[in-house]
């Protein structure tokens, strides 16, 4: 949506409208003028549409047919038409003798019927023109849509090829990366308790790898770990422990700095109503919750994992 920067005291409405229109054009992608669309519809239609299905010269054909037609389109018929004449005397005489005519038959229903027919003819003429106009406009719109579909197809193809390339690249990079113990930057010299803890952790890592291979033994090994953990944590120096706690707290729902869950934040009435209206409000919708989802998953992970292990190891690495 448009975001106009108003830098000085004077605003120029025409300038803003030009910006609005250019932004709309950008959004639409390729924007054709009406003339260009008409030209495309009349000349290049066969390139985009099935020429057997839609004719590009509908309006021209219609106009030619109308011009070629010799049949009168309509006639004027009023209540005085029957008695009209180019000679005023004759017209007056007819009007004078009208009561005598009415002795023989009643011309009024005939006059009314012919008048209604005249109106019907006129409305038919108008409707006919409208139908052709409508078909013509549909042809133009179909052309526009055809062009857009073609553009979009090309974009989708280009994006899918890029995606394939990225996936291949990611797989290749994954294959290249290897775990090297010396590659990680050395930590500050640990305290004696810390060294002990690290040894135990290495053992645990080895055991975990074994657990992956031997799934049944996993449950048996997990229980001693849980029991061991408080003692290990107690051995870490207070500064590192605090830091780790802060990290965990940040990731845990309701912890410091995390706030509400995305869904709850977006549903609270008035949140963001003061801060920029629809931009923030729209942001609280599906897009925002989608954006927060990885964090939410990360926040749930420590709670689901055996206490502190997965969370702490991932936080450290």
């Amino acid at each position, binding site marked *: 949506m448009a975001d106009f920067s*108003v830098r000085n005291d004077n605003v120029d409405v025409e300038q*803003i409208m030009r910006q609005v229109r250019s932004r709309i054009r950008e959004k639409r992608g390729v924007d054709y003028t009406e003339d260009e669309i008409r030209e495309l519809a009349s000349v290049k239609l066969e390139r985009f549409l099935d020429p057997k299905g839609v004719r590009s010269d509908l309006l021209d054909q219609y106009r030619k047919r109308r011009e070629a037609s010799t049949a009168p389109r309509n006639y004027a018929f009023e209540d005085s038409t029957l008695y009209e004449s180019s000679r005023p005397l004759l017209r007056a005489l007819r009007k004078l003798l009208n009561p005598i005519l009415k002795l023989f038959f009643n011309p009024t229903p005939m006059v009314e019927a012919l008048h209604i027919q005249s109106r019907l003819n006129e409305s038919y003429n108008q409707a006919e023109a409208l139908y052709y106009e409508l078909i013509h406009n549909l042809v133009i719109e179909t052309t526009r849509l055809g062009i857009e579909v073609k553009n979009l197809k090309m974009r989708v193809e280009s994006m899918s090829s890029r995606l394939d390339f990225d996936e291949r690249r990611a797989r290749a990079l994954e294959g290249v990366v290897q775990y090297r113990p010396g590659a990680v930057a050395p930590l500050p010299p640990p305290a004696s308790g810390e060294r002990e803890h690290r040894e135990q952790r290495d053992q645990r890592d080895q055991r975990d790898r074994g657990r992956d291979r031997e799934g049944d033994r996993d449950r048996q090994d997990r229980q001693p770990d849980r029991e061991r953990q408080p003692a290990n944590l107690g051995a870490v120096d207070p500064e590192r422990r605090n830091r780790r706690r802060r990290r965990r707290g940040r990731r845990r729902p309701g912890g410091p700095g995390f706030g509400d869950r995305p869904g709850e934040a977006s549903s609270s009435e008035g949140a963001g109503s003061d801060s920029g209206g629809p931009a923030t409000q*729209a942001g609280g919708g599906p897009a925002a919750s989608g954006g927060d989802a990885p964090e939410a998953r990360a926040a749930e992970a420590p709670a689901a994992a055996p206490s502190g292990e997965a969370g702490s190891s991932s936080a450290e690495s």
Partner: protein
Amino acid sequence: MKLAVVVQRYGADINGGAEQHARYIAERMATHAQVEVVTTCARDYVTWKNELPAGADTVNGVAVRRFPVARERDPRDFGRRSHEVFETTHSLADELAWLESEGPTSPALIDYVSSAGAGFDFILFFSFRYYHSWHGVRRAGGRAILVPTAERDPAVALSIFGPVFRGVRGIMYNSHEERAMIQAATRNHSVPGVVVGVGSDVPARTEPMRFRRRHKINRPFAIYIGRIDANKGCAELFDYFQRYAMTFPRGLDLVLVGTAVMPVPSHHRIRHLGFLPDEDKFDALAAADLLIMPSYFESLSMVALEAWALGRPVLANGRCDVLKGQCIRSNAGLYYESYEEFAETLYALESNGPLHARLGRNGRDYFARHYAWPVIERKYLDMLERLQSQPAAAIEPLPGWMARRKRELPPAARVLEAIPSGAVVAEREAMRQERPA
């Protein structure tokens, strides 16, 4: 100085645009001259049914003289005749019959203008398209000043009005676009005219919170004030707004003020409050973020001027030349011609605080410079003074009986199509130069 104001309906509770315009001008000019309003007994502009008593009356201190309407309008007959003159080749007699059918047919009023007209220095006729103006101008001699209140509708292209526009003493236009259209349609460039418009009694203080409390409106909103009618562009507004509301679930609400003659969609973000008294209306405008004017045809939007007077920007329908021209000249409003533009401009107005504030400030300045009452009164008085020193032009006589019946006049709608349209932007530069430093 003695002035007469001739208008189709008149009353403190009659809220038609031209009628309110006439009342405001009559009341304001009454402080400078002796004013008498000459009008009909009708209240309803569709039927012209006699509802008010004939004779002398006083409305807000202004003398009013009412005359009965001889016959009410038959909508079917009027519709048929409108189709005939607007859409088909027709004669001058057909146009005169259309005028009779439109009304308000009040021969007594015309007789009064004819007999008592000499007692007035000038007679101001409001709304060119009605019976009273066409016949009244022809009877008033050189005293007639016309306030056309013309919109871009086919009536302005009817042949019968050409002599009226060319034969009046002066014309008080509502907008530059109206003047351009009338001059193109009737070639009346020689007739003295000035773009005036009308002011409004905007209160010095408004209480937006009172309005919010009274109507339990807590959210920010855009407002539409006027008759809720498809002809006023409301159908398009509802369509656009509902689409916008889907895109921005927490954007502005839409509040509608005015009588509904079409169904208002049931939508949780559209509130219809019905007709409101002036005090409430101004509070509502002050409480609103912006005013939306979806009308395709306007001679002068008083409510847009009122919004500008209160520092509120306007979002107007760009297909209305007058509104678009005013937005451009004032730099106080945006306009749209499609849904995409509607969404972009509405979003810009509701989300961009600096833009909103500057448009609002420009609107306030524009109103003060062109539509404050002292400015309007001065323009009227200057025009009257100028006309007193200029000779009156004679009005062209009607063609003969036979010539009137020749069916050779083109459909008015086709004539109107040929008249150039668009906002008169060239005037803006001139206005900028006029602006005091």
